[in-house]
């Protein structure tokens, strides 16, 4: 009883955080409410016994992604006025998405209340009471680890390669100017001469600056 009370508390807080994220004008306030939502969701996972899920929710979403979001908001110094820039996104993406979500949820709730089965389809398993029966050890570190490194090892590794490619690309795109300069500087410092023209796109500019 207490646990379900806590469950409802966390879920209510998560919903409040989501509403807050949408309603608050200041980006950092919105980010903090999103953080609250994620932490509450993690708590809900934990209450459902999915401890690893909860921890990943905190480590990855709250700990890593939200930190980046907050970081960017701070560094760009976004004020409340900058929220207006995203108005068209809200209108053309947000409203349709919200409409779809609300309609699906309403349909499920309708069927649950009426005690009827929803028509089979893409979302059919969501409301399926049979799906609630979980296998033994669901959500533990061992079971998830076994799935991740056994059954789903190929998608898992492919994803990691994708992420690695993303990281390398980001480093190349953001770091090429300074890399070019550094290469020039090192070359002079070590007395090797310059003119390794094909080195990087940014090299000529840096080299001219150095020569002047």
């Amino acid at each position, binding site marked *: 009883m207490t646990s379900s009370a806590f469950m409802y508390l966390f879920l209510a807080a998560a919903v409040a955080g989501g509403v807050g994220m949408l309603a608050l004008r200041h980006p950092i306030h919105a980010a903090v409410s999103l953080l609250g939502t994620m932490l509450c969701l993690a708590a809900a996972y934990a209450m459902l016994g999915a401890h690893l899920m909860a921890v990943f929710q905190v480590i990855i979403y709250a700990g890593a992604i939200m930190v980046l979001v907050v970081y960017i908001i701070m560094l760009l110094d976004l004020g409340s006025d900058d929220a207006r820039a995203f108005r068209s996104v809200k209108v053309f993406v947000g409203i349709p998405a919200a409409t779809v979500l609300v309609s699906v949820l309403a349909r499920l709730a309708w069927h649950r209340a009426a005690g009827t089965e929803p028509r089979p389809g893409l979302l059919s398993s969501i409301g399926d009471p049979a799906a609630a029966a979980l296998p033994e050890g669901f959500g533990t570190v061992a079971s998830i680890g076994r799935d991740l490194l056994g059954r789903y090892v190929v998608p898992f590794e492919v994803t990691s390669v994708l992420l690695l490619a993303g990281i390398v690309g980001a480093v190349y795109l953001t770091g090429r100017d300074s890399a070019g300069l550094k290469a020039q500087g090192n070359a002079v*410092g070590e007395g090797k001469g310059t003119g390794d023209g094909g080195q990087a796109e940014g090299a*000529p500019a840096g*080299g001219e600056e150095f020569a002047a």
Partner: protein
Amino acid sequence: MNPLLNPKLPEPAYKEEFTAGRLFTYRNPSDLTLWERLYVPEVLRGLSITGSIFFKNMGLWLVWLGYWARGRANEAPRGAVTVYYPEEERPDMTKVNRGKHILTQRLNGEPQCVACYMCATACPAWCIHIDAGEHPDPAIEKYPVRFDIEIDKCIFCGYCEEACPVDAIRLTTDYHTVDYLRERMVYDRDYLLSWNPTKVQQEHVYPGGEPRRG
């Protein structure tokens, strides 16, 4: 890439200087050995030094407890080089420590000072305030009616002492300049003249021996 757009850059004229090591470079070559650059052993060595001092002092504390139990706490060997200041004082205070000021006196007890403002002029903290007056003796002519030193502003640099043409102001070794009230930290002429080498301040000697009198 079009070579015309990226011509080979001329080599800097000071290339030889660089290679010969004659020109200053921003690189600060490390003079650490490989063992030192491993860092962790050196960290452990540092920790062992500070740790040994810690344990030595804790041991001395135990020794002190023994002395204290026998009522002879003062005789215990001590590890700390600092003291409980108001209750204790350092016995090894240097004789040339610059502390409180005094005004030296003529034989009749009047200030040697001729109110020339040299100390006030030299003072970097502007803590000396003088009012000059006409002395009845034309041979002296000028003397300080008021001579205030704001000791809380003073930085004890000793410039006043050095600037004084008549050896009238000196810094003693007395360093007890603390007080709870700011008003009490302004030393007036009478206080500065009250220094007397025969009294209790005896241990706080003049750096330059006895003041010239008369």
